[in-house]
């Protein structure tokens, strides 16, 4: 059974769940058992899980846009083919995750509309520009690399359909990452112009990738029930540290420099200086790094990033130009016309 579309999809922490159901539910989760769509689940578990899966699905299809722009300009046949396949994978991830979300009670068309009317969000990192081919390279290396780190922990969650989807997605993301590694290596072994392009793109993406994992733990809203229910399994700061430990040394090995940057409102770097904090702590093995500009993070989350409007507008354009096709093939939507 899937719940009907009429289910109320708001979090409500005043709800008193029936302990006869809640206690065994939480015991199962502690034992590491998976929750399936037909199982009883607390209202807030359903809503929390739906929000996460929907946000993730949105991120996949918006994430297809910055790289999609470069398909027409990919510099070799092999790269062009690989880029189409890569963006296609991201759309496929979106499709799988919308399915998971649909089963939790929200129709797909509603989700696509909420995305283009700004009611729901997608990952912040896709509000930054990809002005050169080297940005495609950095997205596949750094952003897919960050996504794999995050998603590896999500594959350890408690909701069966999401966990299984995450495992499948991660296999494909590993491919993207490999191709990203191959491309960054090729450019960094290339001509001076290619190296400069790679460095400039790296400068644009380093800070957004640090922000990728969300705000500092001390500032993020209490998510304890979600941690207890294993909807989330690692903290933002943990994941960020793992990212830096993996990518700071890799970047330095490739000959890239890690910079602290100042950007204009279009997301282009206007000033940069070397991040002198970057070094490995020999005692702990962890890498030190400078925090990104968290004010910028909050600005972008609130919708005032370099490309928020452009990305949403393109999704809206796609939605609107495809409406007649969906009406003809999958039947009309019950939803009122978009205004």
């Amino acid at each position, binding site marked *: 059974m899937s719940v009907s579309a009429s289910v109320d999809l708001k979090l409500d922490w005043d709800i008193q769940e029936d302990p006869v159901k809640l206690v065994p539910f939480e015991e199962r989760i502690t034992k590491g058992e998976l929750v399936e769509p037909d199982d009883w689940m607390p209202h807030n578990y359903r809503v929390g899980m739906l929000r996460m899966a929907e946000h993730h699905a949105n991120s996949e299809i918006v994430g297809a846009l910055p790289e999609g722009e470069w398909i027409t300009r990919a510099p070799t046949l092999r790269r062009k*083919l690989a880029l189409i396949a890569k963006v296609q994978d*991201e*759309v496929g991830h979106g*499709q799988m995750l919308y399915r998971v979300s649909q089963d939790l009670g929200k129709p797909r068309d509603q989700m696509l509309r909420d995305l283009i009317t700004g009611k729901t969000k997608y990952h912040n990192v896709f509000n930054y520009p990809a002005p050169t081919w080297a940005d495609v390279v950095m997205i596949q290396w750094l952003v897919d690399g960050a996504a794999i780190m995050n998603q590896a922990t999500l594959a350890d969650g408690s909701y069966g359909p999401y966990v299984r989807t995450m495992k499948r997605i991660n296999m494909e993301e590993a491919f993207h990452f490999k191709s990203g590694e191959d491309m960054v290596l090729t450019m960094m072994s*290339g001509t001076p112009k290619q190296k400069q392009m790679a460095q400039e793109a790296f400068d644009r993406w380093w800070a957004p990738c640090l922000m990728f994992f969300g705000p500092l733990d001390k500032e993020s809203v209490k998510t304890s029930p979600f941690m207890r229910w294993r909807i989330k399994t690692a903290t933002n700061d943990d994941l960020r540290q793992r990212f830096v430990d993996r990518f700071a040394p890799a970047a330095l090995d490739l000959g890239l420099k890690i910079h602290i940057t100042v950007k204009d409102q279009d997301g282009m770097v206007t000033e940069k200086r070397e991040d002198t904090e970057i070094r490995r702590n020999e005692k702990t093995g962890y890498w030190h790094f400078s925090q990104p500009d968290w004010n910028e993070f909050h600005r972008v989350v609130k919708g005032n990033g370099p490309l928020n409007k452009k990305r949403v507008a393109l999704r809206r*354009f796609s939605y609107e*130009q*495809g409406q*007649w096709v969906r*009406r003809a093939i999958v039947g009309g939507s019950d939803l009122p016309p978009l205004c």
Partner: protein
Amino acid sequence: MDKLPNELKQPLVELLLSVADDKFILGHRNADWTGLAPILEEDIAFSSLSQDEISHAIAIYQIAAGLVGSTADKLAYARKPDEYLCAELVELSDEFNWAIAVCRNFFCDHHDYLRLGRLAHSSYVPLAQLAGRLVAEEQIHVQHVDMLLKRLGHGDTESRERMQSALDRLAPLATGLLEPTQGIELLEAKGVYPRIEPAMFERWTEDLRHVAEASELKLQLQAPRAEAIGGRRGRHSDAFASLLDELTEVYRLEPEAAW
């Protein structure tokens, strides 16, 4: 034959380039929909078609490159606009009109299916082997695009009207696919590009009309005038130069570099 007589080389290179250029540019145009198609499932399917077209183009460029001493990438990225031999139909932007996109593929896939079917019986063995493999994939494209045409033709009034006007708009351009490349008679005579009965235009229109009728759509195709000169002789639409500019934008930054 495994080795090609000298006098067939130039005609075959032109024929191969016409096939590969059609596929390369069609795949390039179709990929505009990746991430933006009307239905997620169709987005994924359309991207696969686009990848197939480009993969086919690569394999055919490789044979041509072997004959002229070049590489597939150089053929794809480093020719002048008038050295491309694609038909005008594949060059045109569909302006994000799904009906145009589907109808364009309808004309092209049916044509490619026949063309590859002929090449699969080529007396030039390496080509016959390759085309035999490609024609099987092309058949899947044909099935997919026929299915789309039928579903949209039978959909509702709006979708039928949109499909009909796209067919009407593209039909005059589509026959340009059949413009012969130079020296094709020689290739036909030597069995490198075997003739079929009934001839190409009749077979192609027959196949198309059949599907159009089953989709409640009308299709009028006029046989191309023998003296019409277009893409197969390197004459292209105005849009083609800017298409190539975009396609080669990164390549041209460092043409000798690896990417």
